[in-house]
């Protein structure tokens, strides 16, 4: 079945932003994927996006002091920009290279499998009781002679072994 999708309403956008807000950043920090400083900075702008009244930088405000705008983005947290003169203007988020890279790295790692560390392996596998007899006996070394090139090249099917 083909599912038809419709553009989200403003209220739905707000709900979606709330879902991916602080809790999502918290999970990434908890899993050691995103430094807490970057998570906090990105959370600030997600909070602003989910708030009906937020501090948006207009084109005029940016033009009047672009240095101040960039300084806030780099030193404080990502900022929201919008062409406030246009009714249908989309909001844009400006974020520092460090915030962007840390977020992309965290997302990439979170999308991959979580492989067990030694501690996690011990927690899942360790059992009480003595080692098995086969383990106590030890692993017998299995040496194997090097394959002779002459033997390999002279190998032929045995007569009558067909089928």
């Amino acid at each position, binding site marked *: 079945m083909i599912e038809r999708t419709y553009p989200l309403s403003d209220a739905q956008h707000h709900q979606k932003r709330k879902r991916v807000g602080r809790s999502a950043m918290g999970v990434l920090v908890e899993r050691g994927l995103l430094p807490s400083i970057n998570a906090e900075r990105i959370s600030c702008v997600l909070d602003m996006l989910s708030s009906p009244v937020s501090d948006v930088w207009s084109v005029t405000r940016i033009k009047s002091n672009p240095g101040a705008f960039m300084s806030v983005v780099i030193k404080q947290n990502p900022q929201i920009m919008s062409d406030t003169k246009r009714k249908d203007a989309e909001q844009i988020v400006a974020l520092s290279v460090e915030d962007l890279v840390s977020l992309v790295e965290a997302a990439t790692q979170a999308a991959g499998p979580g492989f067990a560390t030694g501690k996690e392996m011990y927690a899942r*596998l360790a059992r009480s009781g003595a080692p098995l007899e086969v383990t106590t006996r030890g692993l017998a070394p299995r040496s194997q002679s090097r394959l002779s090139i002459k033997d390999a090249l002279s190998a032929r099917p045995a007569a009558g072994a067909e089928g």
Partner: protein
Amino acid sequence: MLIPGPVETFQIVDRSADLPVMQHLAVTEDVIAFAAPALAAVADAYAGESEAERFRLNNRLDELLRDCADTTAPGLGEAAPYYLMLPFSQGAVHSFAKIRQVLGEDDIFSTQTYAIAHSEDVPLLLIRTATAQAHMGTLYDAGIDIHVSWIDTSTEGA
């Protein structure tokens, strides 16, 4: 990341908390990556046991293998961690030939495991036995650099 040798992998499959490798895992923050030949060494050892014993042992090994995946596994989000298994890659083919040239026709599974560690540039996790030290010393002298995280049995659990 650390790659246990065949002997060390043997102890992990056993799972007894009394074993030095298991005690070492309890304090290891690194991801443990099983080399496919080291797991094959365990399967090979189990294959030599009596039929009844072999069934029990293979179940034990299968439990672990079920949760093994390579780095191409899909994202698991909050799911329980998978055990990373490293296959014998293209790079390992060349490393294997170099290592075998130096160590001779010694234990085939150890040589293959060392080759994976060398080609992936991941340290081995080895119990400091005379044999393991001799292997690593010989490889070092031949210019084959494999890092090792040693398990010193006498200090484990201290």
